[in-house]
């Protein structure tokens, strides 16, 4: 056993910039060394204790005012340092973005959600991250800033693999932007885990837009079934432009479960994940469709 969760057994310099500019300067300065951004630390500090994650500089962004804001005027813009617990309690999130709300609420316990951040959940790039499926389903993007300039990247493209993202060493996520969603839209999130507060065996989010009895557009995203959260595009194609019915939902669910390639691990088995994806998909599409105001025909 090499781990010791009581001690952070490495030396590093702790930096606490008070402005975004200061943080960017530090990132620029140390971009060739190993520097890490500390937001909530609920993943990073655990990794520094339990796996071989070494860092020379730890840059705490928690006290940077520019990263501590929520803007609900057009869609949802969430600063990178906002704790998850604040987001799940916002009226607009509960009302308009229920899949995100449900995703956040399913993360660990309140103590962890009081520390953890949405940007941290994205950057940690766990295939089982509970905010990522809904963020992809909503078409969310992250804003990346460095001394060199700014860019925005879709969350879907930002994460490339287990713990891997397209962020550069001198860049920081300043905010997560979620587009305004149509009033005829509905979304839902679902997760299975061993106990209530746990990492997902499998999770998924569905966001769809209704026009009368037809599903105009949709995104279906599954987590913990691949090296990153993935869209079930064949299932989406089956749903788009169609009159939604029980039999169609069954078909979509079956298609989605065929599209994924999960693995066996300590939390569950590939077989179980495949079986359950179908069941969860049926329920989640049905709930999202109901939230979009749709009725269900047999």
């Amino acid at each position, binding site marked *: *056993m090499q*781990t*010791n*969760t*009581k001690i952070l057994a490495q030396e590093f310099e702790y930096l606490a910039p008070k402005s975004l500019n200061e943080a960017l300067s530090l990132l620029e300065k140390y971009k060739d060394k190993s520097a890490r951004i500390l937001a909530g630390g609920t993943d990073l500090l*655990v990794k520094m204790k*339990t796996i071989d994650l070494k860092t020379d500089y730890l840059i705490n962004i928690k006290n940077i005012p520019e990263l501590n804001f929520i803007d609900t005027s057009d869609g949802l813009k969430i600063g990178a340092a906002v704790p998850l617990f604040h987001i799940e309690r916002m009226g607009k999130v509960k009302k308009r973005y229920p899949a995100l709300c449900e995703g956040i609420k399913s993360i660990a316990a309140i103590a962890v959600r009081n520390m953890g951040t949405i940007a941290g959940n994205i950057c940690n790039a766990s295939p089982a991250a509970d905010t990522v499926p809904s963020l992809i389903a909503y078409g969310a993007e992250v804003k990346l800033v460095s001394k060199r300039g700014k860019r925005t990247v879709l969350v879907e493209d930002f994460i490339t693999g287990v713990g891997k993202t397209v962020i550069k060493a001198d860049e920081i996520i300043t905010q997560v932007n979620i587009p305004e969603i149509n009033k005829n839209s509905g979304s839902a999130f679902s997760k*299975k885990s*061993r*106990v*209530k*507060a*746990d*990492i997902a065996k499998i999770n998924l989010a569905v966001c769809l837009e209704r026009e009368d009895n037809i599903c105009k557009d949709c995104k279906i995203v599954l987590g913990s079934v691949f090296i990153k959260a993935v869209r079930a595009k064949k299932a989406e194609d089956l749903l788009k432009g169609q009159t939604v019915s029980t039999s169609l939902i069954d078909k979509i669910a079956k298609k989605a479960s065929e599209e994924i390639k999960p693995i066996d691990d*300590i*939390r*569950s*088995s590939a*077989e*179980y994940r495949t*079986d*359950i994806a179908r*069941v*969860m998909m049926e329920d989640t599409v049905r709930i999202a469709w109901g939230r979009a105001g749709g009725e269900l025909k047999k």
Partner: protein
Amino acid sequence: MQLETKSAVCVPEADGGITVWTTSQGIHNVRILLGNVFNIPLNKVNVKRITLGGSFGSSIQMNSITPICVALALKTKRPVKLVTTREEDIYDHSKYPLKTNLKIGAKKNGTLTAAHCQVQVEIGGHNIQAYPYLGCIAGWFASLYKYKNLKYEGTAIYTNKVPCCAMQGYGNPQINFAVESLMDILAEKLDMDPVELRLKNFVGKGDEFWGQGPTVRSIIRSCGVEEMLIEGAKLAGWKRRIPPFKKTGDIKRGIGVARGFHTSGTGGPNPGEVIDYSGATIKINEDGSVDVVTALMDHGGGTWDAAAKVVAEVLKVPFEKVGIYNGIDTRTTVFDVNTHATRGIYCGCGAIKYVAEKVKEILLSYTATLFKDLPENLELTCNKKLGQAIIYPREIPQNYMTVGEIAEHAHITSWGTISYTATLRQKNCPPCFITHFVEVEVNTKTGEISIPRAVIMGDSGTVINPDLWEGQIIGAFSRGLGFSLLEETKYDLNNGKLECNGMITDYKIPTALDMPKVDNIIVRSAHTYEPTGPFGAKGIGEAALSSVGSAVANAIYNAIGIRFYELPITPEKVLKALKEKSKK
């Protein structure tokens, strides 16, 4: 997994001795072992009693870090403190995984005729208690039912895995799962109600009980098994139970019954192979308050509260006036064996009651001198208005003296302290019984199992701490659900590491949210009195856990008609079994 991780502090003393504060279920064993290991005279080894945050049996043996801490302190001639992490703790000890082959023979009318039980147990890398463990399994097996003819074979197997030690029932839940599952199978084969089959064959009053394997036996004098099965069945709505094939819908509800027990301590009419005695010094202070000086350990189950209540009851002093908690170590106390084998109340408090009665004799003899009367003519009682125990000559209550006044008189006239020191071995090991009626809901689409409701009947004779008793039963139910549905020490076969890496991230135990709602857990006590226990009391701790897994598995069978022969029963296993069943 258990709760508090192990810690130790050792201070080397100028006289060559050591003072040790350590997580332990019994400070005197630690003292004797440290003395032997480091060749220090026992009067120079002082081990302090500290409160435990749960150990579930894992601190019966001296924790491995304790001698390491002492060695470091002796070498450096400085105080040393060691605290293990959760990972080290998970790699330090584990429950005993048990594999059982069991055959039970019965007549058509449900009378059992024979049983053959073969067990194989993994003990990991150290032999902590393999031989006693196999003996105890024999006892847990033999004392459930009257098989008439029985054969038992046990094998312990060394492995290079985590060492196993006593934890949460010392094998009782493991063997109970085999026996109680088979009783359910047998009931179905005989077309009998499982409750009826159990009522017909249980080991009860007047029968011989194996408290700690074949060497520690006594005759059962109190038994609530019948009452618990019958009343529990009524409370649980057992009669409404329908067979699995009559159930419809995706979510199937089932109800299962299982019963178990544990010994209360390891005493017997003849001293067995297990050391079992407790002791105390009890003294009445100069104001009538009482100090109980004992090395008896409390795991958090309320043993100290119970001991204080027993002393208060014997000496008729208010409970608040009995102190038992602070400043205890091996140097100031007589020997007390570990708090294990559900012995705290029956053996520990039994010994304390004996000492308190001796103190009462001295108190009455001193008072008799003051009243110029015989001790047997005096009445000792509690006066709630005065908040004191008082003594008066029988029939003349107005002539009372408070125990405070008597103690003070004994003090200023130099008669001496009203106190007594002794140890006592209980001569019996009465079983405390438990019966679980558990309802489950199995989602046949996802394999998920939830527990909507449970009726739990306990038999501890007189219950001394009713709230804590109920709390222990519900706590054990939670730990039992972990054992039934979640917990397993899996190893990576390529590198021999635990799959969870010793981290609770991947070693899950049930949380409050995974339990039935509080109002849906019904706990009731049987109406029994144990004649050999302190004020009729027996234990509860390990008994409360023994039949949870069996009841859950039996309920799952009643829900979906699938018998699981292995714990834990996970959604993955359930869904796979359901798929295989539908293929047939």
